[in-house]
């Protein structure tokens, strides 16, 4: 078990005369036993970061520490880490038993009998004992997933690394495995770094969530913290489904003037002090359709989800999304009025995207550490 400390991690790929910065000056600490999720759109550098932690990529700059050990220059197999790959990467010609035992056979001095014992107890824990003599191609996706986990667990590593391990499963199985993985991680209490592009998965699984974009770490915090107090417009936009509504507004005294007649009077003007334009963000669940709302928009589509409705509206050229009660059924083309609470409002700097104001409506949860950049 170990705490992971990443300092100033930089990874540059040189391809001919072009060099691509995949990860830039990344600082991140993962506590002992913590489940940290790295999330971001594809190409954001999250997988590269994970591969650097795994030792599959040489870092261009910066250091990596597991506990007291500096592992920057160690090979992956010497770092005491185990990794679960996206497509499981099970060795096709080996049985499940050989797959799980392969790492022990190559890099430990355990006897064959001891390896066999360890493999069997891991198989029992994962409920795959009766599959031990099968080849990977005879297994279902979920079973392969378990074998891949078993292969990681059996080595009793101090760090687990997982690269989108659930993305190849169908939706139902994915939800099941999500819970199972979390329980497993809690039982084993192993420091875990988990990479996904799916923000729902990130929110559901992580003790803390680290959001990356363009090779730069944007924010690290508890799921609730990054949802409610994003440090910038990117995080606010990336986290949450459906996405936050964003529009540009002029600051006119204490009034925000937006497109297509949108206007909102602020009671607290401190956040917009010194800004002539700002980006305004409102979460879909914070929009209330009401007859005496100050703003209006035209309904384009209503998607009934059963427990709630998603109402898509047009505000000039902008599309707004609102999550409304299932019994509210505005018609397409209908003009509706809406309102929202100032406490639920997000404001961002129009140029840098930095947050000027975030949610302040309810009891503040434990806010995660913010990255100063």
């Amino acid at each position, binding site marked *: 078990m170990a705490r992971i400390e990443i300092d100033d991690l930089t990874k540059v790929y040189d391809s001919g005369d072009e060099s691509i910065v995949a990860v830039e000056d990344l600082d991140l600490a993962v506590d002992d036993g913590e489940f940290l999720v790295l999330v971001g759109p594809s190409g954001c550098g999250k997988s590269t970061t994970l591969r650097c932690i*795994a030792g599959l990529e040489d870092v261009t700059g910066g250091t990596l520490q597991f506990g007291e050990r500096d592992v920057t220059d160690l090979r992956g*197999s010497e770092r005491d880490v185990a990794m679960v790959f996206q497509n499981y990467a099970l*060795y*096709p010609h080996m049985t499940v038993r050989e797959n799980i035992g*392969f790492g022990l056979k190559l890099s430990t001095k355990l006897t064959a009998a001891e390896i066999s014992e360890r493999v069997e107890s891991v198989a029992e824990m994962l409920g795959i004992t009766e599959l031990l003599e099968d080849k990977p191609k005879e297994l279902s996706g979920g079973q392969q997933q378990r074998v891949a986990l078993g*292969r990681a667990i059996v080595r009793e590593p101090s760090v687990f690394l997982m690269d989108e391990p659930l993305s190849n499963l169908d939706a139902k199985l994915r939800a099941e495995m999500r819970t199972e993985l979390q329980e497993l991680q809690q039982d084993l209490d192993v420091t875990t770094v988990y990479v996904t592009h799916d923000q729902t998965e990130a929110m559901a699984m992580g003790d803390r969530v680290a959001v990356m974009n363009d090779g730069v770490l944007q924010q690290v915090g508890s799921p609730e913290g990054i949802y409610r107090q994003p440090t910038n417009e990117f995080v606010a936009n990336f986290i949450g489904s459906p996405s936050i509504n964003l529009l540009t507004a002029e600051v006119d005294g204490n009034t925000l003037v937006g497109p297509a007649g949108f206007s909102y009077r602020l009671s607290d003007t401190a956040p917009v002090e010194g800004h002539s334009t700002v980006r305004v963000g409102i979460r879909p669940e914070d929009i209330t359709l009401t007859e005496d709302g100050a703003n209006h928009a035209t309904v384009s589509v209503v998607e009934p989800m059963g427990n709630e409705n998603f109402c898509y509206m047009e505000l000039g050229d902008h599309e707004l999304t609102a999550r409304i009660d299932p019994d509210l059924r505005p018609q397409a083309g209908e003009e509706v009025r809406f309102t929202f609470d100032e406490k639920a409002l997000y404001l961002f700097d129009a140029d840098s995207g930095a947050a000027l104001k975030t949610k302040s409506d309810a009891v503040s949860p434990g806010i995660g550490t913010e990255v100063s950049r």
Partner: protein
Amino acid sequence: MREQRRKDAVWMFLTYAFILTMVVVMLIPLYWMIVAATLPQQEFIEFPPRLIPGTAFLDNFAALQERMNYVVTIWNSVFIAVVYTVLSLLLCSMAGFAFAKYEFRFKEPLFYAILATLVLPIQLLVIPLFLMMSQIGWTDTFRAIIIPWLANPIGIFLMRQNMRSIPDALLESARMDGASELQIFYRIALPAMRSSLAALAIILFLFQWDLFLYPLVILEDPGNYTIPVALAGLEGTQRIYYDQIMVATTLAIIPMAILFLVLQKQFVSGILAGSLKE
């Protein structure tokens, strides 16, 4: 409707007739060869020819063996082809793996050099190779037959193509498990390529098994002859022993035909692998 059905029936009849005719045409030479190998010489050259196998096969074989020790010839061919296949498989898969999974300098130009030689007729090499072999004193040796063809362009090309389909994650996973790069090659990549290796083995084996012009030029001592060279020599002698020739050809063809029946799947995938070149 009835018109259509009659047309279909005619079509089916014609199709079957065509296929069966071709099957018979393909099998006649082989059948006739076996019959001839089992007849004594005087019965063989009778007219009309016999169509039913006789019982003289072993006598014919004994005569052949006495005259030219054909068992050694078969052994030579099998030995050369097997050693060649194993070594070339190793060489081609090693290099193919490097081309598929590693980056190194001169990778591109080296690969284009291989591609360029893919279309060269191998007869081109016989003259210079003959001169080289006589100079280094390899004439009339098996190594002269085996070694020059080990770096098989089709072999490396196929292995490269197939090894590209091994997921990188599989190799990385092995790396995390503590495997060295060489272990990754022989514990992960090679076993994962089993079917491609089988197909390539067939291509390589048949290539060496059928090699004729080159061993004809290199081999001098009849004790070193491979099957094709020995057969070509058999026919050139003054008195032609047809019965013995047919025994010799039967022994050259039938074991391979049986191998073909047993390994038909690998033969077919070998042929198709060769045709994936484009």
